[in-house]
């Protein structure tokens, strides 16, 4: 990694100690390697690894904070008791809207009195049921407000399984610790447990790309040359600005995911 400057400096140094310079030029070169090149590579490697450690290990620890759910809940136990699987509690209302996390009202149907002797059950009845307070559940799958998502379209119309997006939560015996992003305030489950964004299962992540993955598959084996990509959109806009009034090729729509106009099918 020696440079011209380094060489010049070495020559200058040598001029001071002429003897050394004359007697062993090879050593001088060797010294250059050891004295400058070695540490430079070493420091590069140290910097590289340090930042990789920061980025992959420390950063997620700093980014996410942990909260415990107000009380624990056993999905496996409940699902064995009910007839209609997930929809027994997470049901659709008459108007097709999705009820989401059950309200106290539903729980009270069975849990008016303490059942069994689990401390969470006692806490639930004493602190919430008898005081008529809603349990402030922390919802791992909560999406930002600018996303429209219709459960009925996916579950009833497209007949998707809950598990496809929500994973095996129905088989869990206790709720996992809720991790939320300190910057955005949303659950870690949206980005996914893996900080690198890698996923093994369909339910590992809930970002837009994950929606798109399925939508691209489902909506087409269609050749979508007629749909603008973001880059194509940029070029089109540039052309529109540079040559106003020019006829643009007609498109199906701007969104790769929906083949419709703009982003406002899924976004506010």
């Amino acid at each position, binding site marked *: 990694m020696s440079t011209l400057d380094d060489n010049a400096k070495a020559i200058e140094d040598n001029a001071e100690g002429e003897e050394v310079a004359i007697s062993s030029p090879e050593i001088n070169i060797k010294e250059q390697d050891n004295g400058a090149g070695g540490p430079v590579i070493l420091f*590069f490697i140290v910097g590289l690894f340090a930042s990789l450690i920061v980025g*992959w290990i420390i950063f997620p620890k700093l980014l996410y904070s942990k909260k415990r759910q107000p009380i624990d809940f056993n999905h496996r136990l409940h699902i064995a008791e009910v007839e209609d699987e997930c929809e027994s509690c997470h049901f659709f209302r008459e108007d097709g809207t999705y009820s989401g996390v059950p309200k106290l009202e539903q729980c009270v149907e069975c849990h008016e009195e303490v059942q069994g002797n689990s401390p969470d059950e006692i806490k639930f009845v004493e602190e919430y049921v008898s005081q008529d307070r809603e349990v402030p559940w922390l919802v791992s799958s909560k999406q930002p407000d600018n996303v429209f998502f219709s459960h009925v379209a996916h579950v009833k119309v497209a007949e998707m399984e809950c598990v496809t997006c929500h994973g095996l939560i129905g088989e869990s015996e206790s709720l996992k610790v809720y991790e939320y992003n300190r910057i955005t305030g949303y659950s870690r489950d949206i980005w996914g447990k893996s900080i690198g964004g890698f996923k093994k299962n369909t339910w590992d992540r809930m970002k837009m790309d994950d929606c798109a993955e399925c939508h691209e598959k489902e909506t087409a084996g269609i050749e979508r040359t007629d749909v603008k990509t973001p880059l194509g959109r940029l070029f089109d806009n540039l052309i529109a600005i540079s040559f106003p009034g020019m006829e643009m090729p007609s498109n199906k729509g701007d969104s790769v995911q929906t083949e419709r106009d703009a982003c406002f099918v899924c976004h506010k």
Partner: protein
Amino acid sequence: MKIDRRSFLSFLIGGAAGTTLSPLPWKLMDDSAIWTQMWPWTPVPEDGESSYVNSVCTLCSGGCGITIRKIDDRAVKIEGMKGYPVNDGGVCLLGLSGLQLLYSPTRVKGPLKRVGKRGQGKWEKISWNDAISEVAKTLSDLRSKGQSHTVGIISGSDRGTVPRLFDRFLTAFGSPNLMLTPSIQDSYELTLHLMQGVQALPGFDFENTDFILSFGSGFIDGWGSPVRMFRAHSNWRSTGAKVIQIEPRLSHTAAKADKWIPINPGTEAALAMGLAHVIIKESLYDTNFVDNFSEGFYDWKRLVLGKYGPDSVATITGIDSTTIIALARGFARASKPLAICGRGQGTTPGSLHECMVVHALNALVGSINSNGGVFAVNGTEYVNWPEVEMDGIAAAGMQNERLDEAGSKKYPHSRYLLNRFPAAVNSEEKYPLQALFVAGANPLYSMPDSNAVKKAFAKIPLVVSFSSYLDETAQNADLILPNHSYLERYEDIPLPAGLLKPVIGLSRPVVEPQFNTRHVGDVIILLAKALGGNLSDAFAWDSYNACLKETLGDKWQTMVEEGFWSDPYFNTKDLETSFDTISGKFEFANQDNGFLPQFTPVKIQGDEKSYPLVLIPYDSIRLANGFIGDPPFVIKTVEDTVLKGKDVFVELNPKTARAYGLREGQRAMLSTPKGKANVKIHLFDGIMPGIVALPRGLGHTAYDDYLAGKGINFNELIGPVEDPDSGFDAAWGIRVKLAKA
């Protein structure tokens, strides 16, 4: 091993390379994008089960049915109720902004007792029990001293169970001093009383009329029941009904009319007399009605033909005689003509004569109790409680004359004269008022001559406000006993303004009370019970809701199901039986007291020399000027030529402006005999020269930052002018001086 600059740089480069290969920058980029969507002020709608509740809006006297959308327990949207006889699905700007009142930071969250000076804004929280027993103690002291008549109540309405409870309370307590926020309804009520002998309110058949002659009524600026008027107005466009607007200023209503006739302000009655002159002279009147169903026509005819020829009327009104004649012919020849009055939104009763003359015009063309005309509607008989048994103190108290002298020898026909109340308190001629209760009204804002009203309030030792919001009156009260807001309580809302048939709407709770408030009806019942004796006997109900249910009887179930009740048998079209006068007919001249409707000029305050111009108010649907101030959504819609920042604009004709050397946007000092205000000038060709117009509904000192401190309260600049016949406030303006500031 040497650590030098090179090593450090390579460490950084390594770090940069490593960072790029780690998720850190990419994840941070994504997170910061999401973070920007998460500003704390970005409203995020509630998610939950949606449901709808039907109720009735009580923010003005329009009485529209509303449907409120809720998500779980939160009200999220107000819409007009479909099928409601007043508005059938429509809603106005104020009505749909009502949630900003329900969830407003200016709500009074529980009973408050003043600790600082009046109006200083220092309050201490007090329990309901303490508050009620404190009031009860003061009242019972007054009673034991024989001063029961020194207690007064100012109410926003006198119809329905809540105002009747106030009335009943005062009767049982021994005070005649129930007062009402005045409006054009008072004038109409008295007109119907004097000309038709009935105690009723006017119902106008706007849906069927084909010629509307409006003497300054801003029917799309908030007059009557606003939403019904919008619909009627749109309907006129499609049916081709003719709309004539007579007023000195090109209001929104005038701009939308077929013809706008500018008139010298205050001379509307003269024009009406002039129109009558032409109609009678040319025999264009409805002979069937006049000959068979009216009395006193010839007395009135003599007066009309004698003094009100088109030429003399032209001199008074500033409208040329050919226009007057053409207008009269157009009105009389229309098949279903209708004349209406009440300037702007109709917030002042105006001159009684003016209202009677306009009503006489309707009679002349046979538009009384006929399709497209005016009907007398009464529908409050359902509040039919056993008579109050008065004890000695109550009977003695009720012997006293009212402080405002309504119903006295001087004003025998008027029922309430709130405009006379401040002067009566300030002059101390009669008796000092010891306690005043205010409900559904904001007199410190909405009464003319604010300074005199303030002075009068300062003389009353105990002022109690029932307001749900910290409005001007509540700010200056000693105790605030907050009512549930209108979306949290039951109440019967009878007789929506101007409707053709008796309808009782049911205002009902949309959400649970958000704060520690109580229904004013319950508070009155509790007060009566605390006072004991005949008062507690007169208020035997357990609660207001029990009282309401019992009063409505079998109507209750219908109202709960439908949202309203309307009388299926109501019919006033029979002219033989609809008049209850001495003659049994419509009386152009009152056969009892010889009262003849005519033009009686109302002299406004201020001399012409010191105050060369005339100031008139104007109303807009975007400015609420009653006991409710504009919520934030509504004030945001006010145009920049009306209000900019905190400055209000007065409208001035360019000619007048030139004479005073004033330019558009320039600041000016406006002074009237009652007060001064710093305003900005807006040049407007749509206003007659010599006239200055200022919007009503601004200049609040209370409510939130969106409203408080913006513009000028017109009431600070004007004083009441008493109508000699009724005692009503007949002021239509005040003389004014403009100078560059």
